[in-house]
């Protein structure tokens, strides 16, 4: 299971985008089965190192669509979802996916320099959160 340690927190890059830590996908990990979701408010640079840009989805506040999207990803044998979303989105993902169909979820808070805060949710089939 992907842990937060595998997201390298780079202070310099982070401050450029306003986050307390820039999130960079571990370069050695295969990402073709990974769905990346980002709230429109989360700067794209914060997650720019993902090497599967085609799978990135912008979350615009439709929570039902968010739950559907993630559910469908796992239903289609997707392995991993990484979502930088608001509190409510993270709360929903954690409660609708956790424990089901072998999917485990880790949540982390992601403070933003403007005082706002997002949540990072990592959901992965199998393994250990």
């Amino acid at each position, binding site marked *: 299971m992907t842990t937060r340690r595998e997201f390298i927190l780079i202070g310099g890059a982070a401050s450029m985008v306003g986050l307390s830590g820039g999130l960079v996908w571990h370069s050695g990990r295969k990402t073709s089965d990974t769905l990346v979701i980002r709230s429109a408010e989360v700067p794209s640079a914060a997650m720019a190192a993902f090497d599967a840009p085609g799978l990135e989805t912008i979350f615009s506040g439709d929570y039902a669509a968010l739950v559907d999207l993630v559910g469908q990803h796992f239903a289609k044998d997707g392995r991993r979802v990484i979502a930088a979303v*608001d509190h409510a989105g993270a*709360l929903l993902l954690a*409660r609708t996916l956790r424990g089901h169909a072998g999917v485990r979820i880790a949540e982390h808070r992601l403070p933003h320099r403007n005082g706002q805060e997002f949540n990072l949710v990592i959901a992965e089939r199998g393994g250990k959160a």
Partner: protein
Amino acid sequence: MANSVPLLPPGHSPASFMGVIKQIEAIIGAEHVFVDTDRLAPYAKIMIPDPDEVHAPAGAIAPGTAEEVQQVMAICNAQTVPVWPISTGHNFGYGSAAPAMRGTVVLDLRRLDRILDFDPVLGTVLVEPGVTYKKLLDYIDEHGHPFWIDVPGPGPIVGPVGQALERGIGYTAYGDHFGHSCGFEVVLADGQVMRTGNGMIPGNNTFNTTKYGYGPYLDGIFSQSNFGVVTKMGLWLMPRPEVYKPFLVVFEKHDDLEKAVEICQQLKLHNVIKNTPIVGHILYQIAQQVRRADVFKGSGSVTDEWVSQYAADHRMGVWAIPAALYGTEEQVAADWKLVKKAFRGTGATVLTDLLLHEDKGWQHAKRQMAGKLDLDEFALYNWRGGGGSVWFGVTLQARGSEARRFVDLAKAILSEFGFDFLGGFMVQAREMVAVIDLLYDRSIPEEMAKAHACYDKLISEFAKIGIGVYRTNTGFMDKAAEIQGEVRREVNQRIKRALDPNGIIAPGKSGIRI
């Protein structure tokens, strides 16, 4: 299968509990039995102001059929392993999937997810507890049946059985969810199966059409209770109306509350408005649109003055009432005249879809009142952040003076602890349900302690003026039951002892134990 047992049911050793688990695994499959900490995490994740460990389950088991439920119950009864039945387990702000009593095993019925019967003439459907509203709506749409469903806020991810049993409320003309259920199949503590109504008569076909059958009406004792495990439920569906006319009534001042409630009550009493008009405080809407820290710079609770100013700046009222008319063109036209007449000269503004179509909050209300699904209300949890939510809900006489009494006392208590009044009134002909979502940051221990103390005080202070909750969370069920008095508690206990002498079904639910 786990390699460690984190927690045990009362009176069990690791060996005895794992012996029970092995028996259950043999019936439902090891892949549907969870006892390791990681797998149990979803069942322990709560939003109410109690530490997780207070409600930590010893395990979770997910049978796939009613017959498996019977077999599991027989084992648990014989071995005295308490179980906490859940349907979809998303009872947010009331305890989610976690049990009232630490060490209980969650009986997860989500795999019982079949739609067993649908009658397109009588408008009845027979569902299992794991059927979600989304699944039901998809089924209706797929088959082109001319019916609507009625959904609560978390509609797509929860289901009608849990909603009806908890006596939840929705937004169409069929918003009384228990009232529109008909016929329960119940697995009793010893594994026997009973059907309510006339459902036990061989060949009888009124299980989902006739509520009362013969003799005592039993359905009610299986709601908000722990007397059995409901494995099937009949549900009545609302015929799709020829015309649906949603509208929004806006009052601008805090002091308009009494007037708003009284007009809605009369329109309900005379059956003009068919659904439940909700006299909602605007902060509930504001909280879905912005974060508190971004807009409110003061300390303590958000004040009435701040709300008035914010509402004025954003062209909102202080009280907003979404409601709807349903029926034929002629019926709706006649009712619409009565609605406009009722609000004329009161200072209220009556808005229709034509004027509101761009508004996101309105789109949500419009969908809800038509039985459509979204999760937009979850934006509420961004208001404070931190994932803390606990609902306080009471029933009142449907009078303006009662609404005022509720608001004044609730605000006084909330402000003592620095929390905000996010709530409203679901007005019926004679009664109304008043609800508040007490939002707090669960990641801050001091704030969680304050939320607990605040909720405790809400229950206590309202009890002093004769007002009790209509539903509560797993952390306060004993306290809410105490308010009902000793005789009521004893009657519940006698029924419990008769139907579940070992006390294995949901100990502590609604404060009921053997």
